[in-house]
C-alpha cells in the first residue's frame, strides 16, 4: 500500500458539485466497509456550513483543517479552478493531492505542480481516476468491486482500461496492492518513475503492471528507473500520428511517442509487453 492508508483523513474539494457529492458517498461507503476514516470534510468556496453526503462543507481547506485532521485532498473542481485547488491543497499542508478533473490547460497544470513541489505535496493526476488500495483506501472514482487485495502494483495513464486489466488480474487470482491512475494529460504530477519508487519501498508489492499509451516517454523512463519486476501494456499500436486519441496526452508528435517504439524500448530493457490486455495475468505470474 502506498501514498495513503486507512487512517488518512481525506478532504474533497469541489464537494458540492454533482461529481463531488456522488463520489464522497462512494468513497465513504468503501471507508466504512474497510474500517477507514474516509472523507472527513468537503470544500467549496462560498458554501461553508452546508452538508453533503453526510460530510460538513467548509469555505477553504484551512478552515476545514481547524476542525478536522486530514492529509490528502481529492479534487473534483471544474477545470478553470482546479489548478488553484491543487495549489491550495499544497499550501494548506496536504501531503497528497489527487486531481480527478479533466481539461485543465497544460500551463496551469505545470504551474500548480511546480507550486505543489515547493510545498512537498505529491500530485496524482490531473485527468485521472485516482488511487485504490484494495482493503484499505479509495481516493477518487475507481470502482472497487473489480479489485482484490494482493501483491501486484498497477500504474496507469488510463481509467477504464485500468479497470479492465484489474478485472483480469482479479479473475486470475492476482490481487493488487495499490492501483494508481496517474492521468491522461501530457503533464502530470506523479509519473511512472515516482510511483515505482514508492512501490519499491512497499513490502506488499512484488510486481508492477505499467499501463501506458502513445505520447511522451514516461513509461520507458519509469521502467528504466526501477529494479522491481515490471510487465507492461501500451495502448495505441493502431493510433495514427498527430491525432489526439481522447486523452490530451495521447498523441504521437514529431515522430515521437508511438506505441511500437515504446514497446521496443521496453522489451530491450527486459520488460515483457502484452499485445492484448488479456495477456497481462500470465506475464505477471511469470514474474512472481
Amino acid at each position: 500500500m502506498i501514498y495513503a492508508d486507512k487512517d488518512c483523513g481525506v478532504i474533497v474539494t469541489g464537494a458540492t458539485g454533482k461529481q463531488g457529492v456522488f463520489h464522497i458517498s462512494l468513497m465513504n461507503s468503501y471507508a466504512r466497509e474497510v474500517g477507514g476514516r474516509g472523507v472527513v470534510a468537503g470544500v467549496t468556496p462560498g458554501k461553508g456550513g452546508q452538508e453533503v453526503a453526510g460530510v460538513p462543507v467548509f469555505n477553504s481547506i484551512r478552515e476545514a483543517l481547524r476542525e478536522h485532521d486530514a492529509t490528502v485532498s481529492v479534487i473534483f473542481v471544474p477545470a478553470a479552478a482546479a489548478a488553484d485547488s491543487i495549489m491550495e491543497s499544497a499550501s494548506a499542508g496536504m501531503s497528497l493531492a489527487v486531481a480527478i478533473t479533466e481539461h485543465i490547460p497544460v500551463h496551469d497544470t505545470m504551474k500548480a505542480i511546480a507550486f505543489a513541489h515547493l510545498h512537498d505535496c505529491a500530485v496524482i493526476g490531473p485527468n485521472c481516476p485516482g488511487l485504490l488500495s484494495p482493503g484499505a483506501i479509495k481516493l477518487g472514482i475507481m470502482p472497487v468491486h473489480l479489485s482484490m487485495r494482493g501483491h501486484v502494483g498497477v500504474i496507469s495513464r488510463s481509467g477504464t482500461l485500468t479497470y479492465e486489466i484489474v478485472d483480469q488480474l482479479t479473475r486470475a487470482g492476482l490481487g493488487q496492492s495499490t492501483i494508481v491512475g496517474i492521468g491522461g494529460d501530457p503533464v502530470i504530477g506523479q509519473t511512472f518513475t515516482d510511483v515505482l519508487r514508492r512501490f519499491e519501498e512497499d513490502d506488499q508489492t512484488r510486481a508492477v503492471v505499467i499501463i501506458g499509451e502513445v505520447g511522451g516517454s514516461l513509461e520507458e523512463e519509469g521502467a528504466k528507473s526501477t529494479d522491481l519486476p515490471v510487465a507492461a501494456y501500451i495502448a495505441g499500436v493502431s493510433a495514427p500520428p498527430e491525432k489526439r486519441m481522447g486523452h490530451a496526452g495521447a498523441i504521437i508528435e514529431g515522430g515521437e511517442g508511438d506505441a511500437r517504439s515504446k514497446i521496443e524500448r521496453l522489451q530491450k530493457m527486459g520488460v515483457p509487453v502484452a499485445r492484448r490486455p488479456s495477456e497481462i495475468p500470465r506475464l505477471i505470474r511469470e514474474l512472481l
Partner: protein
Amino acid sequence: MKLLEHEARKIFAEHGIPVPAGSVIRSPGELATVMDTLGDRIVLKAQVEVGGRGKKGGVLVADRSNAQELASRLFSMEIGGIPVREVLAVEYLDIRHEYYLSISVDRSRKCALILFSDQGGVDIESLARDRPDALRRAAIPVLMDRVPPFMIRDLLSGAPAEIGDVINRLYSVFCRKDALLAEINPLVMTPAGLYAADAKLVIDDNALRRQGIAQNRDLTEREREAEKHGFSYVELKGDIGVIGNGAGLTMATLDLIQYYDGSAANFLDVGGGADQERVMHAVRLVAADPSVRVIVVNLLGGITRCDEVARGIIAAGVSQPVIVRLAGTNEKEGREILRSSGYQMLDSMEEAVRAAVEATR
C-alpha cells in the same frame, strides 16, 4: 490547435519578434498591389497546416514576370489533401545564416523546453537524429517569467547575441498564448538583421476559450459534431465502428481489432456517465459514416447502467449490426433487453472484437 503561419507570425510580430514584410492573399488577382510594397522578388507560401509544405511544392520564389502564374498554381493545389485557400506573400530575404528555435512542453521535466541550433532550416527530427550535438536544450523552471541569461549564453554559445532577445520574446508568446509549441524554423540572419522566416504555434485545446478561439479547426465536421456531445472522436479508414468509454479502453479496442486483422473506422470515447441519450447519439454518429459495416460497443464501468445503455443502442435504430460488451450495474437486464431485440451481447472485449471482425469478412 495548430495556427496557420500567417496567424502565428502576426502574434510573433505583436510580441516584438521581427518578421518579413508580407500579406495574405486569397486570389492571384490580389498579388499586384502586394508586389508594389514587397518589391520585385517575393516568396509565395501556401497557408496549410501540413508538415513538409516546402517539399510538397507549397513554397515558391517568384518575381514580377511569373508571380501571377505561380500564385495561380498554388491556389489550384491540394497539399496533404487540403486545398490551398490562402497564400502568404512575403519579401524575399537575403539569408546569410539559418537557425532553429523552438519552445515546447517537456513532459518529463514538466516545464518549457527551449531547443536551439545554429543548423536551422532542416526539419528538427532529422537534425536530432543526424546531428544531435548541434541541438542545444534548456529547460526553463516553470515559475520564471524570463529565460535566465546564463541559459541564453549556453544555448547560443557563440551565435549572435541578439538571438537572446528573440528567445525571450518567443518564451513570452509561449507562456501568454497557452502554447504547446512555438517554433521559428528557420530564424534567419540577413544584412538587415534577424527575421522569423517561418512561424509555427500550437495552442492547447483546453485553453482555446480563454485564448478567444471559438472553434477548433483541427477537427473534421463529424469530429466537431462529436465534440458537441462531449465525445472524443477520431476518424480512421476502416469499416468497424468503435464506441468505448475511456480513452485507454477505446484505444485498446482499436488495437485488438488490428490484432485480429480487422480495421477500425473510428475512435469514439463517450466519456463518463454513458446513459441512454449519450449512447444513442454515439451509435448514430458512428453509423452515419457510410464506410461502417458493423459497430462494436465496449463499455466497462462501475457505475454504468447496462439497461440504460441497452435502451440507447436500441433507440439509435441503426441499420448496421451492433455487437456489445457491457459490464457494470444491471447487467442482466441490459443483456435481456438487447437479446429480445436481436442484438449480440458478449462477456469480454476480446469476444466482442472477434465477433465484429468476423462480421466484416
